[in-house]
């Protein structure tokens, strides 16, 4: 008998326009000790399925049809009280963000012990003992001390361990993990996934692992179910699905996953996913405004052998704790003697885990932070000591694309105003008519269409917003583009489109790019040379192929090793795109 059986499940969210189906006719089953991956992009309904199993759909969503059977007993349609008996005791749940899934005002002890007392009917002393056992089982050192602490005293990875300990507290038969490692660094991700895997295998617990990340699927799951638009399009053993996907959606999804083993010229077209792909308008750059240089700029013939940007011995520290006396203050060294240079037309990658100081460098170059010491030399000029007035023309040449497309656009301005603002500010156009022509061309150029100009940011999806950010960055005719994690907030198919767009732009406009990411496969696809950063310092600099084939520094080696192994992914349709 299967541990969990989901039969023809339908979930609806009533909307103003009538009932909206979020999940349609979904069926799957799970055995004891098995890990089933539920994969898909945002909006596919994968998290909804997880929530439906423990009856925690956020209202007004509801199960309209189908059955959920746990160990032979139907659990869909139980009363709230009966469902409470199942949650925690039979089904444990792990949420995505360990930073928000623990109550900040209670100690770990309170939160663990209340779970144990409720689900196992233990006394307080027995619960305490069991809590300590659980914490050591999930690998928290010194559990007797740590248990007295509050969530904010734990790091992200440690918190997720606590969440797992709580999920396991009631000795559940089934664990539902909803994106358990998405908010974590790659090295922590590896530890947490191993932990989940070991626990499932040793305790014979079944696990539904909901994720958007093919790497996680490949390394952790036994079987995988692929969801698209509320429907299950393919289910099978992980190996089989990844190596020889059958359904066209699975095929395009897999082809859009950035690969770490081979470098491609472009990501293959993922037509199945975005059906109404607007065609990108080509512009003859030599004739067009975009390709022109400003007066004065034309004379600076950039020497191909000389670096466009040189970062020399940059140091910056932030005060983390203020005190009256200098000796009591504490600092965080955000950049420690960082030096590198970027050649014209090249894409230079900065890679590292969170807190390694990659974004700090980007912000110093863009002039958003001021370094304590060191120089930024752009096109032969030291720029960080310039006055604000001199700096203006440099700012026009260096532009930035930010990570989160939801917060980097002003939601009260329409797209025309957003893109035209830098053109007007830097006086790059002669009259209003020219400005509006440029904006329409830019929107066409990034594949949104000129009609987008009158809309507001909330009318666009994440990927479209990132195109707007790129158009805004291009609006000053920059020579140097800083991309700070430009695709980490996006789905993989959208990521593939945005990365393709950036590559096209670079080819056509001869842009020089600084590309920052924590995602090694993305770096591999985008960059020519890479610097690996750790705790504010560069530990290794190498060409992209050298770094991925023979990393020298132990930290780089570790990062490369921790990268989810995707060598078995299907290569269908990629042969023409190999570099």
């Amino acid at each position, binding site marked *: 008998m299967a541990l969990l059986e989901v039969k023809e499940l339908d979930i609806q969210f009533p909307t103003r326009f009538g009932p909206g189906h979020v999940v349609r006719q979904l069926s799957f089953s799970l055995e004891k000790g098995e890990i089933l991956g539920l994969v898909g992009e945002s909006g596919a309904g994968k998290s909804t399925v997880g929530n439906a199993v*423990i009856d*925690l759909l*956020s209202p007004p969503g509801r199960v309209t049809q189908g059955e959920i059977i746990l160990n032979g007993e139907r659990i869909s349609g139980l009363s*709230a009280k009966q469902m*409470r*008996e*199942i*949650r*925690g*005791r039979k*089904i*444990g*749940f792990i*949420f*995505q*963000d360990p930073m*928000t*899934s*623990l*109550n*900040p*005002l*209670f*100690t770990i002890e309170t939160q663990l012990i*209340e*779970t144990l007392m*409720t*689900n196992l009917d233990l006394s307080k002393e027995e619960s305490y003992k069991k809590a300590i056992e659980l914490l050591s089982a999930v690998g928290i050192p010194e559990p007797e001390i740590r248990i007295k602490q*509050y969530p*904010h*005293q734990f790091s992200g990875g440690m918190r997720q361990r606590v*969440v797992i300990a*709580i*999920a396991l*507290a*009631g000795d559940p038969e089934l664990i539902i993990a909803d994106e358990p490692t998405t908010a974590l660094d790659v090295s922590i991700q590896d530890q947490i996934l191993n932990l989940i895997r070991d626990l499932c295998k040793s305790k014979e617990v079944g696990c539904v692992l909901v994720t958007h990340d093919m790497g996680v699927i490949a390394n952790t799951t036994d079987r995988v179910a692929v969801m698209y638009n509320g429907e299950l399009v393919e289910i099978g053993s992980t190996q089989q699905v990844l190596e020889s996907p059958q359904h066209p959606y699975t095929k395009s999804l897999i082809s859009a996953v950035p690969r770490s083993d081979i470098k491609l010229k472009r990501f293959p077209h993922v037509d199945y996913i975005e059906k109404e792909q607007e065609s990108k308008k080509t512009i003859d750059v030599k004739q067009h405004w975009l390709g022109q240089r400003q007066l004065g700029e034309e004379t600076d013939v950039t020497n191909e052998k000389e670096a466009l940007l040189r970062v020399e011995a940059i140091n910056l520290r932030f005060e983390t*704790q*203020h*005190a009256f006396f200098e000796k009591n203050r504490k600092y965080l060294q955000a950049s420690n003697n960082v030096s590198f240079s970027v050649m014209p037309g090249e894409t230079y990658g900065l890679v590292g885990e969170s807190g390694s100081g990659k974004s700090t460098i980007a912000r110093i170059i863009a002039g958003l932070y001021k370094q304590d010491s060191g120089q930024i030399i752009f096109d032969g000029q030291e720029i960080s000591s310039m006055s604000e007035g001199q700096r203006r023309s440099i700012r026009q040449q260096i532009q930035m694309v930010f990570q989160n497309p939801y917060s980097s656009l002003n939601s009260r301005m329409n797209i025309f105003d957003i893109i035209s603002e830098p053109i007007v500010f830097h006086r790059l156009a002669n009259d209003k008519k020219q400005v509006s022509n440029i904006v329409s061309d830019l929107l066409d150029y990034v594949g949104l269409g000129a009609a987008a100009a009158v809309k507001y940011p909330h009318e666009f999806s994440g990927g479209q917003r990132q195109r707007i950010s790129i158009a805004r960055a291009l609006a000053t005719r920059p020579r140097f583009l800083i991309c700070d994690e430009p695709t980490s907030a996006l789905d993989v198919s959208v990521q593939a489109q945005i990365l393709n767009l950036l590559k096209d732009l670079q080819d056509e406009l001869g842009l020089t790019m600084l590309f920052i990411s924590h995602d090694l496969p993305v770096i591999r696809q985008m960059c020519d040379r890479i610097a690996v950063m750790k705790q504010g310092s560069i530990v290794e600099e190498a060409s992209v192929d050298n770094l991925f084939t023979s990393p020298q520094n132990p930290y780089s080696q570790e990062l490369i090793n921790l990268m989810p192994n995707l060598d078995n992914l299907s290569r269908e349709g990629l042969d023409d795109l190999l570099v």
Partner: protein
Amino acid sequence: MALFLLKRLGQGLVVMFIISTIAFAIQDNLGDPLRELVGQAVSEQEREKLRDELGLNDPFLVQYGRFLKNAVQGDLGTSYFFKEPALKVILTKLSATLELVFGATLIIIFLSIPLGVYTAVHPNGFTTKLILGWSILGISIPVFLTAILLVYFFAVTLGWLPSYGRGELVPMFWGWETGYLTLDGLAHLVLPCISLASIMLPLFIRLIRSEMVEVLSAEYIKFAHAKGLSRNRILYIHALKNTLLPVITVGGVQIGNMVAYTILTETVFQWPGMGFLFLEAVTRVDTPLIVAFLIVVGAVFVVVNTLVDLIYGLINPTVRLTRSAQ
């Protein structure tokens, strides 16, 4: 902790210095204290002599310097009307006001939390709409009208409760007399406390409701459900504690406000408190009393806010830690 209190004390002194400056600066515009102080029959020469004696003819800065020098020693001047130190006059009335505010605060706490939680948990229920509709009404009706209506129904028509004064009091320490220990005193407290609470209660219900709605959508509440906890534990332990953090901050300021603005309630109920006293002081152009009143109210604000910050630190572990680390 000690450093925090010291810092607060310093800030409090600055606040009170500014308040005293403003209060002192406007006193020339409040009218002529002599007109109230002496009878019609007093001649102009005698008035002038009295002005000299009171120091009212000195330049502003000299007067202010004298005031500051005395204020530092705890002497805020002598009330023209009571012929007693202004601070002492106010402090004897302070207990009456604080008892009124205390009662109103109790009403607010014991009504706003359950009602706020109820309306957050049942956002579309009929009762919720009733409570929220009524709360709009409560905000819109001025305090004195509420007070008069209460007096009309419960004191005049029904005759259940007394309509003015403090009733039978029991002396406590430092001249503090309380009405909380006798039945008669309690009966006298009911109507004034309700009318004082009436304007703040809707605000708190709405504040708790909106905070609670936000907290209920937090991930840790969903996780608490997934842990299999009971509904009551989730609502009243996990959610409520998080809800109360911002409420405490706002609440502290509002309680300070109540102390300062009991004037209307005290006037309607002839409550012998500070607000009532202040109103009288203004009509009598009793400037030392007015200045002293403003300073005392400023001090109440500073003390209440310090207490609020301390309580906040006790509830919120992140605040407590950063503070002890300082």
